[in-house]
């Protein structure tokens, strides 16, 4: 019975698909579907429920890279190796995003709460970030990726601060691709930082009390470095379903995608799943359409 049903559905789908195909072929211009390098997906003009549309791509994707330690534990590796795998995955992820036309990628690399972890792990993380940034400056320049770091940064080692500054300066002029790393970042601190910034400007006579509104407030948040501070899509891996103090203000209408996969295993296929889910959603931004 089930196999008959499958056959019937298959035949029906074949008929529908054939009709649609004939119709669209008649309308289509010479510019056909483009296949991206890896060949795992197709981005094109024809609208089908199983394909991604470039015009519906999110402009800004944020990611909470959770699960590196668990991944290392399951693989029988050290925690530091888990974080290494996570860093590698982030770069691959960012590259894929930019290839798909996503302009801004934000990654929660190190939260303010993470300072509470074991000192050795924290030191490893700082060292890893430093090493990766230093080794990838040329790559960022060749790919024209702008790199920005947001966060408190007061407790960060001087050597890492130096590399951060160097990377930011080396890539400041690039506009089309933007990688934002949140290091020692807290959403609440971001909001407080905006308050302090407003106070300073008020002291300097640049703004009056009555000028303080949502728009001005947003312009004082740490995400002012990007044209699109509010992510369209937030991905959190490892099955945890919370935003853990990341971009609190900015996430009001962000599509939240919680994946059970651990971050080092979050490959392009899992990401495509997130994008398909995103493109299917009817986002209303709180209003009735």
């Amino acid at each position, binding site marked *: 019975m089930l196999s008959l049903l*499958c056959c019937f*559905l*298959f035949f029906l*789908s*074949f008929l529908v*698909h054939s009709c649609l*195909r004939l119709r669209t072929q008649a309308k289509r211009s010479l510019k056909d579907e483009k296949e991206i390098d890896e060949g795992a997906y197709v981005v094109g003009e024809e609208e089908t*429920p*199983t394909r991604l549309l470039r015009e519906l791509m999110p402009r800004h994707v944020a990611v909470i890279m959770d699960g590196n330690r668990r991944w290392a534990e399951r693989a029988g590796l050290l925690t530091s190796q888990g974080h290494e795998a996570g860093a590698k995955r982030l770069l691959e992820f960012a590259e894929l995003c930019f290839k798909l036309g996503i302009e801004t990628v934000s990654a929660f690399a190190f*939260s*303010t*709460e*993470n300072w*509470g*972890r074991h000192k050795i792990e924290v030191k490893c993380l700082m060292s890893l970030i430093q090493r990766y940034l230093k080794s990838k400056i040329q790559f960022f320049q060749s790919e024209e990726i702008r790199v920005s770091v947001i966060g408190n940064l007061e407790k960060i080692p001087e050597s890492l601060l130096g590399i951060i500054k160097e990377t930011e300066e080396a890539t400041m002029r690039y506009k089309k691709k933007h990688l934002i790393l949140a290091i020692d970042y807290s*959403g*609440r601190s971001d*909001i*407080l930082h*905006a*308050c*302090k910034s*407003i*106070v300073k400007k*008020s002291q300097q006579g640049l703004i009056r*009390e009555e000028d*303080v*509104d*949502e728009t001005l*407030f947003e312009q004082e948040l740490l995400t002012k470095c990007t044209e699109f501070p509010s992510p369209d899509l937030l991905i959190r891996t490892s099955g*945890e*379903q*919370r*935003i*853990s*103090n990341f971009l*609190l*203000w900015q*996430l*009001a*209408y*962000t*599509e*939240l*995608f*919680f994946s059970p996969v651990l971050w080092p295993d979050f490959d392009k296929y899992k990401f495509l799943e997130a994008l398909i*889910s995103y493109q299917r*959603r*009817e*986002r*209303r931004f*709180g*209003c*009735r359409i």
Partner: protein
Amino acid sequence: MDFNDPMLVLSSWIAQIVDFGLDLLWCFIHIVVSLCHIVSGTFEAIESYAISLGLIQKYSSIDIEKLKCLAVVMDIEAARDVSKVIELLQWLTTIGVKQVGLFDSQGLLKKSKDMILEMVPRSVLLQETGERDISSDRIALEFISSSDNKEAVVKAANILLDKYLKSSHPDKGEEGENVFTESHLNEALRVVGENVQGPDLLLVYGPVRSHLGFPAWRLRYTEIIHMGSLKYMRYGSLLKAIHKFTGVRQNYGV
């Protein structure tokens, strides 16, 4: 030239057949995935009914004490269906949830506040309970909208700005910056009339997996579960979501 024309036609046919074949394969995979979704959806519905009937042992007793504050976010379509909202609240009362925050971005639920309080037995407005503990047979309700989010933070920021400008002296340097701590902003938000308590669990009802502008300041460590449509909500799914929450262990970044 003549020899090339049939070759071109042939290769074009082959390309089209291959293309068509790949499309059929894609279609078939799509059907298989859709069927899997149908089957898993059916299982979920059956499981939900089994939970509702108390047939699954592990959902019979839930450590509800862990859930101090629950928030429910719904899109405006769902918020218009007040009867469903009331039904949901009655279920939550049955489960033993003591404090529920109801959020919709446009404030429709705020307008239906009186009706909801009247129709949900033993319900009381959270603001009226004050500092007192909510008794075990009552449920405290809070009605929230977008105006309690960014607008409230801006008002609170203005209060802090005002306080800073009145208190700062040129020779005290950085001292004014001590006005801007989390606890100060919490206090300023309370002055503006906002609740700063972060919900432990946020249930999202609607087509979009987004918290739709729920007060950002409160969402720091909140567990978020998307429940689907309010219209087709199930008691079993609600119980399952709460049970899942009670099993979560947070590291808080450490």
